[in-house]
């Protein structure tokens, strides 16, 4: 993830990535150029409680149509009749409430490792990643075996290895190899403006999936006219490359730019920004307004 020096939107992505891992009891390795990286865990968002989202009646109405499926659910032992939905296991949670910190129960696991990259050598970081992945591989449980590595601002100037351009590339190559051989995903955020253009390109080539985030200026009247929901937008997310593992067919996305919105200041939402022409009469972009649009698909992507 290529960071924007003007705004810390990459942190929104990191928080979501890390919270999602912890909620699903997946091992997490977090490295950052802070003295106490563990403190960052306190800023992770909590899953949105279903009670906040829909009223109780709505839930039971939905279940009515699932009569047979519901019967099978009974036998799995987890869903007893009439139990409080708050106790239900959070399965595949994608919705987080940015106003509420992650509950302590998710932070107590043994599978969380935090490292400060300030006085760290690349060799040590590599070893920590390696032992994290090896340890993770021994775990047999289906959902928790997917390990997550989050490295924030990898080439930040505070890091001892900051001047080792080639060493950092060698590290990323090593990490790629290790992650490919395991059930893990690694997200590295990079203040890429600190790198020379040629090294920045080398980093971009190394990425399997390449994203960048950009800030949107506040109170920009021109943009406000072009984009609906401008007030809620904090930034833009661009997708430059998508991982093509085991295939040679490139993925050309219908939309490669998304607006990053904070819906009701609570949830992170990504919305496609289509390259559709502007509707002269309303001033709204075809893509976000839903009126006759050049693109076939437009919708809200919950991140």
């Amino acid at each position: 993830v290529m960071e924007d020096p003007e705004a810390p939107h990459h942190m929104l992505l990191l928080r979501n990535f890390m919270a999602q891992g912890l909620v699903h009891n997946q091992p997490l390795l977090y490295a950052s150029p802070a003295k106490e990286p563990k403190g960052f865990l306190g800023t992770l968002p909590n899953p949105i409680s279903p009670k906040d989202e829909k009223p109780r009646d709505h839930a039971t109405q939905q279940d009515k149509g699932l009569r047979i499926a519901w019967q099978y659910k009974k036998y799995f032992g987890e869903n007893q009749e009439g139990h409080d939905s708050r106790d239900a296991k959070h399965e595949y949670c994608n919705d987080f409430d940015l106003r509420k910190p992650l509950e302590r129960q998710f932070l107590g696991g043994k599978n969380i490792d935090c490292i400060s990259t300030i006085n760290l050598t690349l060799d040590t970081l590599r070893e920590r990643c390696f032992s994290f992945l090896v340890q993770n591989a021994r775990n047999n449980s289906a959902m928790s075996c997917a390990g997550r590595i989050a490295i924030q601002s990898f080439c930040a100037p505070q890091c001892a290895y900051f001047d080792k351009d080639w060493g950092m590339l060698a590290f990323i190559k090593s990490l790629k190899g290790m992650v490919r051989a395991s059930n893990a995903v690694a997200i590295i955020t990079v203040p890429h403006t600190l790198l020379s253009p040629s090294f920045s390109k080398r980093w971009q080539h190394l990425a399997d999936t390449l994203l960048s985030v950009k800030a949107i200026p506040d109170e920009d009247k021109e943009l406000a006219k072009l984009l609906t929901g401008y007030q809620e937008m904090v930034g833009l997310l661009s997708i430059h490359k998508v991982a093509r593992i085991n295939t040679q067919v490139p993925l050309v996305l219908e939309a490669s730019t998304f607006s990053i919105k904070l819906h009701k200041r609570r949830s992170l939402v990504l919305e496609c920004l289509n390259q559709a022409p502007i509707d002269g009469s309303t001033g709204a972009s075809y893509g976000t307004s839903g009126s006759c649009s050049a693109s076939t698909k437009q919708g809200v992507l919950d991140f």
Partner: protein
Amino acid sequence: SSVVLIEDCVETSGAFVIHHILKRALSPPSSSAVVLVSLSHPFSHYDRILRKLGCNLTAHRDNQRFFFFDMLMVDFAGQGDGNHSKGVLIELYAKIQKLVEDISSSCGSSKRITIILDDFSLIEVAANGSLNHSLDFLRYCYTLTSEFGCSLVILHHEDIYSAAESAALILQMEYLASVLIKAEPLATGLAADVHGQ
């Protein structure tokens, strides 16, 4: 005994050309042996892609027609140690040369050998950025084309050089190449069914 250079960029990957050449070299009427030196992907990646193209890399590997050098998992912890980084490339070249010698001596001079390198920017990482070590490796691989009649196919990125002096490596490669293939994005921008040119 030609040198094929494939140049690509972040926007458009040239890896598909390697897959195409792999398939051509391993399918009839060709009887050549192929040596794939991969610093980018594990064997399984190429195996799955080539299967979809109707070529069984695993079988060819078992039949001693396809040889895979897994350099992805090799640690290039050169960090400033010039001798260590030189050592990695010397060792790699020695292995390639030994293999080529073995194939040539057991099958005779009629056996065509194609050496594929994916990709050269990671050779530069292995060399810890040393232009000299990277050039040495390139030139030594080039000698295999004249000494053993091998073909050399190299994938490299053309957008990783900004200053004129650091482009020396890619200029050397372009000079040595008999065929230069460039993969680029379309000048007109993104399209749904055309991925580049």
